[in-house]
């Protein structure tokens, strides 16, 4: 009954932003590159405020057009696995830096050509999707941001919160912790939305890289219901950016799991604007 397609943009946004730190010119062997001007000044770990930590986190985002392949492998309650392959086009608005995103499904075959478009304008998100079988573009909006989507364990809010892109709620810094020998900030956000599944998000941000390495989603009673875990072995630095290329999201209530594999990123300096226009985003415009 409650459709979740409106949240796909959030996932794409996250994936794009996560991956954008490691990019290579299209058509060449991928070479990680940092966006000019990106990065953030080092923080005083003891005195850093929530805002400073969020700025530092956003400093890992790239600010140019790019393409990246993503594979989402979800494991359902009954143990069955299902893979979904996407192409993710990312190009912030040149002047304002506002996010624009085009997600195109390549596999499975029945879904090939299905596309999403997210554009942000003056802080407002506009989301469109395209159904090839109906040859129809539909603009959607909604406020149900906490439901899993695409048969995965990810929701828009999960990932948005993780990246600090749109932490809607009241965030405070609580006691730091050490995970696998690395110091982490711990941010606790009381979510503003009346989220049915969870009320609190606890984010563990690596102090050295400002990359969120773990997010715990807690329900009203403080019980852990979901967990997003970065694979620390894939944490890499391409100065001044840090990124992770493998995540696992576990839904403890549904007993399911989704693996997120991010491929190399290709910089597409001449990525057509048609990819981000509601009338043409679903066409092959590269």
């Amino acid at each position: 009954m409650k459709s979740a397609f409106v949240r796909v943009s959030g996932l794409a946004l996250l994936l794009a932003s996560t991956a954008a730190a490691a990019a290579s010119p299209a058509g060449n062997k991928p070479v990680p590159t940092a966006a000019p001007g990106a990065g953030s000044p080092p923080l005083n770990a003891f005195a850093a405020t929530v805002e400073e930590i969020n700025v530092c986190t956003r400093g890992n985002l790239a600010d140019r057009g790019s393409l990246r392949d993503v594979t989402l492998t979800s494991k359902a309650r009954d143990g069955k696995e299902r893979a979904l392959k996407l192409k993710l086009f990312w190009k912030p608005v040149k002047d304002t830096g506002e996010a624009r995103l085009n997600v195109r499904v390549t596999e499975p075959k029945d879904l090939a050509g299905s596309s999403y478009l997210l554009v942000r304008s003056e802080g407002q998100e506009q989301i469109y999707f395209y159904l090839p079988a109906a040859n129809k573009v539909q603009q959607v909006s909604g406020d149900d941001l906490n439901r899993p989507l695409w048969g995965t364990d990810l929701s828009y809010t999960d990932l948005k919160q993780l990246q600090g892109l749109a932490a809607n709620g009241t965030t405070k810094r609580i006691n730091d912790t050490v995970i696998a020998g690395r110091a982490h900030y711990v941010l606790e956000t009381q979510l503003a939305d009346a989220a049915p599944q969870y009320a609190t998000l606890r984010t563990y941000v690596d102090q050295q890289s400002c990359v969120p390495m773990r997010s715990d989603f807690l329900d009203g009673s403080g019980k852990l219901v979901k967990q997003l875990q970065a694979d620390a072995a894939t944490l890499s630095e391409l100065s001044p950016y840090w990124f992770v290329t493998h995540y696992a999201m576990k839904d403890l209530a549904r007993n399911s799991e989704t693996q997120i594999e991010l491929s190399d990123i290709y910089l597409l300096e001449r990525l057509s604007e048609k990819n981000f226009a509601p009338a043409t985003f679903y066409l092959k415009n590269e």
Partner: protein
Amino acid sequence: MATAAPADTAARRGSLAAWIAERPRLIVVLITLLSLAALLQLVDFREQRLRLTVDASLDPMIAPNLPAQPVDDIVHARFGAADDAVLVLLQAADVYSPAVLRQLDELSRALAALPGVAEVQSLTRVPLPRGGDGQLSLRRLKPSEFDDAALIAALRRSLDADPLLRGQLVTLDGRSAAIRVALSTRSDRDTLESGVAEAIRQTAHRFDGPDLSIAVTGMPIVRDATSRAVLDQLGWTVPAIVLVLAGLLALAFRSWRGVWLPLLTISLALLWTMATLSASGRPLNLITSLVPPLLATMGLAYCAHVLTDFEALLREPRIRDRSKRIEHLLRDVTGPVVLTGFTTGVGVLALVTNDLPAIREFALLSSLGVVYTVLLVLTFVPAMLGLTTRRTPRQPLPADRLFRNGSAMIGRFDVVNRRRILWVASAIGVAAVLLATRIDVGDRFVGAFSAGSEVRRDYERVNTALGGVTPLSILIDGAVPELFLEPESLQELDALQAWLRQQPGVGTVTGITDHLRSLNRLLTGSDVAALPDSRELTSQLLFFGDTDTLSQLIDSDRQSTLINLRLTIDDTAEIGDLLARIEQRLQQLPKSMHAQASGEAVLMTQSVHAVTSGQLQSIALALGVIYLCLAIQFASPWVGLLASLPTLLQTALYFGALGLFGVKLNASTSLVECLVLGLAVDDTIHYLSRFNTAARRTASETTAAVSALQAVLRPITLTKAILAAGFLVLTTGELQNQVLFGWLAAFTLACAWLVDVFVTPAFISGVRVVTLWDSLRLNLGANVQGTIPLFAGLSSREARIFALMSRVEVVPAGVLIIREGDPGGDIFIVIDGKLAVWTYRDGERVVLNQHKRGGVVGEAGYFGQKRMANVETLSKTRLLRFDDADQELICRRYPRIAARIFLNMNRIQAERRARDTAMPAT
């Protein structure tokens, strides 16, 4: 050795009785120490709490290994639990009015904030589709929008047009709104302990008012209310039973002793039983909680038997010594009490074959309680009677004359009208069996509450307004992955759903095709909610529209799907009929689909059937074991069967009554018979035991039948009244199945009383029974087969049975037992002593013959002639006497023994003719 054994047994029994009778203080001290130990086990005095825990959930009531359980497990593993929700109904003149919408929103938020609530769905909590023409918005209705009449009207139109939402959140008439509350608790026990169901109920009913009416239902609410009602009832049932029974005892014995001693005894039995349960680490559950009332009523009934005997002995002038009186009491009651305890124990222990672990625990715990009760009744009660009785009462027992005269009158009536009573009993028995064939198996969970109860009222209101509460699912597996992306498969599912909607008892039906219709309309902007016409479109709609709700209906491979139904019925018999029809319809699906029903409704139905059939097996087993006991006691399979007939008649009457009054057979109603069977047979055994003794003493079955009734009418009336009163206390409860349980148990006990008082005496007055004990106790002397020619070829036991089926008479010397010229009749066999056969010849007495041990006299008369000589005892002589009727009886009961006796008699006659051709026959 065979003759030594009974003497030893009797001696042992006697010495044990004497030992107990002579050491009442020691017995009381030992039992006090044991009881203190039990108390320490049961109560943690340091923490000031009971060590025994209580599990009041209905979890132990669900039978394991049901056929639908694997399907249900698959459904839960594959799609998650979705059907175990609480439904809150709001009814108002217009639920779309701003005031009602505010209350709906406030209530939804209040419910969502409750601990143990996982999710709340309502008109103000779920994103609702809005807009059109390339614009689609899925937003929750916000409080600021409640006053926007145009928006609300558009929303209503949108909801009514959506095949998925239509009638779900708000009914089409706009007068009822639903809130669906999903719980985060994992089991019934969790739900009960968290108190979430009760919290939801209380929170929701706070919104009841003149303009808004609330109803709360759903399986968690019904189960929670059931558990609480049972617990609540248990809290006062045992005290109420004790109070009622104390009154009965006071009335029956008119003495303090007659009240406090039985109450103290059952308290100790309960203490020991509960302490044992506590030591085992198991909690008291809803079924084992029936053990205390059962033990209370049964223990009081046992005490009533012993006290009645004791009161009679008190009035016996020949027994003045206290310890002798107790010894005498124990000799009288030990056999019947042990045997009745055994049969009661067997009645409940037969339940160990049941599928339900809780019923198996009940069987073990109650049979252990029976053992404790019997032990206390045979040790503590006599010891206390010995210690506390100082004076011999002068007054007879209350209503003594009434019972004495009444029993004599009824006994004579029974004997005189034996045939008529047996014909009537047979006719009733046959009618009962025929009526029993009309019994249906079934149970109602909401129907367990009275029509006026809140649980029932709310259930009915929600059922009517929302079209069903009881959940049922149909799991459909495809032969290949992605089968349910194909339009043809979807058409099949759609047709099946349409068929399901037409079935009586089916309220709502939701399946993947409803979602696809809704998604097709919303995502393609179509005006018509049609099924997608291509595999690709289906796939894409499911992809874009994927939600938790959708993943609870179709798996990721699109190979398996669920159709969810809500039924308006909760009677498992009706659900069983519906399931049979559904099963037939599912057979018509294409071979590429395999469908099975699952869910609460199926599990409930199968559980009732499994538990009921298990209990029927238990009843059959109990009857079999009781028959076996009686056959062993009476040393004959045939007599055992005859002695079991009153019990069988009582069982037939019970089931006949169920058939006559349309009462369904289920866990409660079959449990009644299982319990009452063990209790009702007790009095039959007491009666038969008395009858047997009286028959031996009086050598007349008819006299014995009356005499035995005189001895037992008072105690069996008292015990039946005690038991019936105990069960009738249950009829004041809230749960209708417990009320029915109480009435049926009382009815069955009344039937058992009628059978005991009228049918058993009438029946038994024509039956000569020989107990194993009698056969062991009868001493026919050494080498029976070698010294008594009539018994040649028989075993010692067979010889004793024949002897006991005949009559053993001890005749002093000089008594004429056969008079010349009289008509022939009886045959006499000399066991020991001496007889002279003589006649007068020419006025002088001529002794024709003398007979010692083994001699047979009177056989010529037996074959129809007149007596041709006199037979007189020369010394004190023990004779075995039998006539034609006895022979007939032996032929019927023990044909092998009868055949051997006839053969031996022919030999004896032939030898006598050969040897004494000149001698006149006697």
